[in-house]
């Protein structure tokens, strides 16, 4: 884990493996660290570069952060400072949304997009569960295919020492997520119009047991991005990155 200074802000960046660079943008749970998915991608010849999104534990909060575009501008700067050339973006959940925005705003900086159970759209008749209202355990139940095992799935990334530090991590992660997506709720009303013009080769991966974002969102992403295709993972929920890293790494590796 290294600390990058970007425009006066500290951003922690986890790097794993060597080879072709891939930027990974994490989910609402802030899973950055030694997770099996990174190992699996590394073993397929990739160098994973995973910055912690500002506000999540490990990276600074942004000053004067008011709007989504403040975050997108800054994430764009982070990847620019990393100096990786034209790099593919893999984003899960919140990170998928951020990847969509980056691809829309700066299409010539990125090579491809992989969107995994991504937020970002509002789909009529397919309401996203309110992650800010329910209890933590309600959310885990809905998010994961196997109920509430999030703590053990996150352990390799966070190496938390006790349940309180995990709790604190998740509180902070929710706060950082709310700072971006409280309202409009976890979507960008402009994204649907703009996404079609990003022109990036895009893979959409969806854990179909996701109780947070309905599968209809995968179909909507696909219909908005020309040439994109959807791979469904029937054994996973909201975070296939944690739930079935080997399978996901195969799918993502093949696409990249």
């Amino acid at each position, binding site marked *: 884990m290294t600390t990058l200074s970007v425009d006066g802000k500290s951003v922690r960046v986890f790097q794993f493996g060597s080879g072709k660079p891939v930027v990974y943008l994490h989910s609402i749970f802030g899973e950055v660290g030694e997770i099996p998915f990174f190992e699996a991608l590394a073993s397929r010849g990739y160098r994973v570069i995973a910055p912690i999104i500002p506000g999540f534990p490990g990276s600074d909060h942004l000053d004067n952060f008011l709007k989504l575009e403040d975050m997108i501008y800054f994430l764009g700067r982070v990847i620019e400072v990393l100096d990786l050339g034209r790099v593919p973006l893999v984003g899960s959940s919140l990170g998928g949304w951020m990847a969509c925005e980056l691809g829309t705003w700066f299409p010539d900086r990125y090579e491809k997009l992989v969107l995994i159970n991504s937020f970002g759209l509002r789909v009529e008749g397919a309401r996203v569960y309110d992650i800010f209202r329910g209890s933590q355990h309600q959310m885990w139940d809905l998010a994961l295919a196997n109920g509430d095992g999030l703590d053990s799935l996150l352990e390799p990334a966070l190496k938390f020492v006790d349940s309180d530090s995990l709790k*604190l991590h998740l509180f902070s992660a929710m*706060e950082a*997520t709310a700072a971006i997506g*409280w309202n409009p709720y976890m979507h960008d009303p402009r994204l649907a119009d703009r996404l079609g013009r990003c022109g990036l080769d895009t893979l959409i991966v969806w854990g179909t047991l996701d109780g947070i974002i309905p599968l209809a969102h995968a179909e909507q992403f696909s219909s908005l991005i020309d040439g994109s295709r959807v791979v469904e993972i029937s054994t996973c929920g909201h975070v296939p990155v944690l739930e079935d890293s080997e399978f996901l790494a195969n799918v993502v590796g093949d696409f990249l």
Partner: protein
Amino acid sequence: MEFYSFHLMPWPHLPESYSDTAWITCPNSLFDPGQGNLLYNRYLDELEYAEEVGFDGLVVNEHHQNAYGLMPSPNLFAAMLARRTTRAKIAVVGNALPLYGLPTRVAEEYAVLDVITGGRLIAGMVVGGGPEYYSSGINPTQARARFSEALDLIVRAWTEPGPFEFHGQFFQLEYCNPWPRPYQDPHPPIWIPGIGSIETMEMVAQKGYSYTGIPFFHMSVFEKNYATFRKCWLDCGRAPDPGALGLLLPIYVAETDQVARGEYEEHLWYFARRLLNGIQVSPPGYTTARSAMRMAEAQTSFLTSVSSWKEIVDGDYAIVGSPTTVVDKLCSIIDNLGPGHLMGLFQLGTLPGELTRKNLYTFASEVMPKIRAEFPNGPTWKE
């Protein structure tokens, strides 16, 4: 020592069959406008009656989209009272600044109320409750910063000759020049409620405003928070000032302890179990993650966790009893905490109009004089 009658204007008609939250998603089809017509007028009458029987002030407040408190715009209620009362102060413990677009609207409306009443206004400024961030869509991670900037703009609008420019993070105004200016000089007293965060206490102390702890906790929570506030106040180099502290408590007084409990208990449980249900929601970023975890632990000291009358009495969640019992309890609490403003919630939950009036009358005639006699120069602080 000043005595205030605080009203929440609750909805007392939640059907037995409805047991879910009273906040955010409590269906507004449960509000009946015909009953609302009777209630609003009754509740306003109760506030006016409090002035009549001798209270120093009347308190209105602000809540949105819930059955707990039916005053979405407290300034409307203050305005109705402004022209119907002549003596009592009108304390608006509302104006949830982060929820509004333009803070100068608050500066203007408060100034109007202050001028019309000839300086009877107390200007509350609040962050708004956790549930209100769901109901308004305002981002809770921006709540504290919006509050602080809006408060700054309002106070400047009252005290700095206009027009001036204001360039904040949230609000930009090329011409800040609100008419009218407030009657009180430099501006009406400012009351700010807090849930125990040290940051709020320090800010209130630094600026010399007045602090009120959020109610319905075990008395030990007040003891801890009020001691912290007094320390903040003194650390700012200020002299002890009970006027810088307000205290809000549910109060019911009747002929005997037994009569008081008999008349009051069911209404208290309606309030605690039905109307407080859902108030504890704390959206992400509304407080720091550490405070949110502390607050989650403090739930055990909140009225919603109480199940027996004994706990109510032992924890002073509500002060209920004969005039002697209520005088003794309140004197001991005032002595201990040092508040110069005592706000009583004399109507609560389903408590009907006639018992509310009886409560107000008995308190004003048999409790207030004795407490005043006990603290002829107001309370003092232990420090």
